[in-house]
């Protein structure tokens, strides 16, 4: 008996699942619960059972009947509420949200990477004088080493013999912080800088830098390498490699230019890295003793490193932007491609 009920139950479940219209559903109802249904004919056989078996058969009969009625009702609901359904393939409404400028978000990412390993974020002024921009950084007034730092001068009465200018790098802020605070020191300084370069796809007379430095009794070149590698891995890829090439900067000794393994071709060589597999991203070195001296720090006791990098350069590599002018045009079609808030 039990067996027979189960067969009916399964059969009904199967059939009702396949129903695809209200008419079919009615047919199914008649077929499984109607007077001529298998269930009805099964119940007609109850009279032939032992009286002791009848209550159990009645219970099973009711259970199956309620079950089938339940799934019929459920199915019916899906048909009646289907009218509420909408066409989700209809075009969506365009969303445009307020966002950070890509340079701001890259600056923040850069600063936060350094902050995570103990650097403090500070800023400095853009109007500086020759002492802070050159002299204190061991850059002589009339020397070829100055050629790399063409500078905008300002029509402001000079501070003694030092004329006012727009800083050509963020390093003057390094001087100010070293003068103001005592070691141990570890800072990153983001900001705008200015150089009278003619504007083209890779030059702008205004751009951004992030400067970083650390001074303590035992800060080494190995720490400089470690810090920058940590940065490169977080900014770009964990597989990123750095290559330190000896170079000359008046304010560091030893100095290095740093290349990153090309993040476009992963070092295999492409047009962006000019087939070398490397991209130059920053300059750095151990702070020159003259610079420490200029800031009143005893170079016999303390030593440190400093680095500086162009934010636009980093942003261009990170996002694959090929023209620096895009950052300052503020075309919505450009700005809308960045999602950081």
């Amino acid at each position, binding site marked *: 008996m039990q067996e027979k009920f189960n067969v009916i139950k399964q059969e009904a479940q199967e059939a009702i699942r396949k129903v695809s219209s209200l008419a079919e559903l009615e047919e199914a109802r008649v077929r499984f619960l109607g007077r001529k249904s298998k269930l009805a004919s099964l119940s007609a056989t109850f009279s032939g059972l032992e009286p002791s078996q009848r209550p159990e058969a009645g219970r099973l009969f009711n259970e199956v009947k309620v079950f089938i009625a339940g799934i019929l009702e459920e199915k019916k609901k899906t048909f009646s509420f289907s009218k509420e359904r909408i066409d989700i393939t209809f075009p969506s409404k365009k969303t445009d949200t307020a966002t950070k400028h890509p340079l701001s978000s890259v600056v923040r990412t850069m600063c936060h990477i350094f902050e995570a390993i103990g650097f403090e974020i500070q800023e400095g002024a853009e109007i500086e004088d020759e002492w802070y921009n050159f002299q204190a950084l061991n850059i002589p007034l*009339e020397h070829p080493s100055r050629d790399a730092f063409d500078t905008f001068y300002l029509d402001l009465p000079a501070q003694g013999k030092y004329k006012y200018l727009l800083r050509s790098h963020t390093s003057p802020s390094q001087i100010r912080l070293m003068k103001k605070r005592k070691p141990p020191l570890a800072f990153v300084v983001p900001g705008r800088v200015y150089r009278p370069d003619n504007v083209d796809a890779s030059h702008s007379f205004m751009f951004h830098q992030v400067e970083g430095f650390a001074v303590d009794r035992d800060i080494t070149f*190995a720490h400089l390498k470690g810090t920058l590698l940590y940065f490169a891995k977080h900014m770009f890829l964990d597989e990123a490699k750095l290559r330190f090439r000896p170079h000359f900067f008046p304010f560091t000794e030893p100095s290095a230019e740093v290349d990153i393994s090309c993040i476009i071709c992963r070092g295999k060589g492409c047009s962006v890295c000019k087939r070398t597999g490397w991209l130059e991203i920053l300059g750095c070195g151990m702070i020159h003793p003259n610079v420490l001296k200029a800031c009143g720090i005893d170079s016999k006791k303390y030593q440190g490193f400093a680095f500086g990098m162009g934010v636009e350069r980093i942003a261009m590599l990170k996002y694959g932007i090929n023209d620096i002018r895009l950052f300052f045009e503020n075309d919505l079609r450009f700005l809308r491609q960045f999602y950081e808030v």
Partner: protein
Amino acid sequence: MKFSLDFIKEFVEVKVSPEKIASLLTMSGLEIVSTEKVGSDTSFEAEVTSNRPDLLSIAGIAYEVGALLGKKSKLALKKVPKQPVFNIPIVIESRKDCPCYFGRLIKGVKIEPSPKWLRQVLKSCGIASVNNVVDITNYCMLKWGQPLHAFDLSKVEEKIIVRRAYPQEKLICIDNKERILNPEALVIADKKSVLALAGVMGGKNSEVLSSTRDIFLEAAIFSPILVRRARRFLGINTESSYRFERGVNPVYLEQASWEAAYLIGKLAKGKISGCKKAGSLPLVRRPWIKFEVDRMNGFLGTQIKQAKAGKILNDLNFEIEKKKTCFLVKAPSFRQDIKASQDLYEEVVRIWGYHNIKESLPLIRKEIRKEESFYKFKESIRSKAICLGFKEVVTFSIIPRKNVLSDFLQEPVKTRGFFSSSGVTITNPLRLEEDLLRPLIFPGMLEVLRYNVYRKERSLKFFEIADSYVLKDNSFRETAKLCLGWHSDTIDDFYAFKGKAEFFLKALGIENPHICEEENPLFSNFCSIDDFAWVGVLRSDVAEKIDLAKVFLAEFDLEKISKKAKEVLFEEINYLPWVERDISLALREDIRFKEIETIIKNKTASLFRSLEVTDVYKGEKIPRGFTGFTLRIFYQHKTKTLEAQEVDSVHFSLRAELSKLDGLLLR
């Protein structure tokens, strides 16, 4: 600097490939930017940093290549034979300008094309062959780094004078261009005229030509600063000026001069006939520098062995005296850039290889104190502006003197009130007229609005955070500002803009600032908020001039705001029910809303919760010159549930009070 590998091989045995040499040099500080096969030779083009004038010579590069290959260059100084002194006077006007001037005579030369080997060396070094004498001077310059100049002796009138040029004095140089000089320039002259621009370029009038028989060979030391100024002023950069500017090695001067004279004698069949030295060679200071290998390793974070460091320094031609615990090291004469122990560390480590230094992270010690950072304050302002729906832009701090606003202001951005100060000027702008450091941020904002309006965008909300620069009685102030800019086709959006500005201040905990409406030539509405901000609606003639519709602008002085801002604390929520009552009224256009708002607040007093305009209309039922709107007033008691009667009585007396106001109609 282009140089030939074969030339280097005269001094160092090289068994590795040219590519290997290029990479070794690049990774030790002499960047090889290109490599080129020239016959069986290889020509390298190197970028020489300004601290290493010695690398502008084969002599210098040979030591470098030697050290990298673990051997020492065989370059040796030759004994310079004594020569009779000739009788042409050499006069140096100022020893500061020219400490030493050395002349040699070579007579009866035959000017011819150079032999093949010489032409080839020069070609590999990127220098065009001229004739045997000129080529020899270039060859010796390449080898020793000491520029030499050959004059046709027959063109030299009576004597050689090293002096400053007279004002407006002229010289036609060997590049056939006439140059007008000034007393900043140092020249070589004879009794009658200028023969050469000292250290930069020779004159046409004394050039060595095929007819030349007797040579006056110059080897001198000129002031690097004067050479630099002259070549910058005249806009010429030569092999000679490039070297003088960076400093030549006095020790090589007579060596180079003698070798050139010797070669001219040999190849041009001349007779070396006397020399003369005016002034004296500057003293080359070569102090002993203490070198402690442990200190170096502590500075670099390395474990370089003392013997290895010693070998590197020795290969680089440094003199070493071994002491018990350290070395005393003396740099060679051509390394005037070496002054302190750090310089020696660099020498060792760049040859040893930067790549051998193992990276590690520093343990940064920190003081226990709160780090106040203006950057972070600006970041919080940035987030707030973004939350309010403004997109960030970055515009130039330097703006044209003649900008979008010039037509409306007598002087750019200079007028009464908020614009009482002018911007700082750049004395050497990139383009004339583009020389103003902006005292206000919004001119850049207008440019951005216009740029995007031209690209068919009408509804624009932007912000920028940047410094502004204000000239104030002979001094200046640089302050960070936030500028908000909103472009819309309808003036009604102003109230949304106002709402955002209010929200912004509220979020900073700045309450009830003093707002003062002012006249302004650029704005139809303009008001200052305390001393830290202003808000304005651009006047339609100004906006139309730059093809914009309605423009709302605001600027906030972030330094002042940072001092006023405080944290906003939680305020207890009033869960008691509130009651709303509407009033429909019409207001004559000369009556300001502020007036009825004051009445409402006075009359409703402690029951007042807030008000809202639910509906604005003009039309038939409203008299001309009036605007109709519905005001919804929300009443709520601070401590108890309001009874309808209580509200009605307050509301009724409010209506009565309002009806007394001239220019207000209750409906």
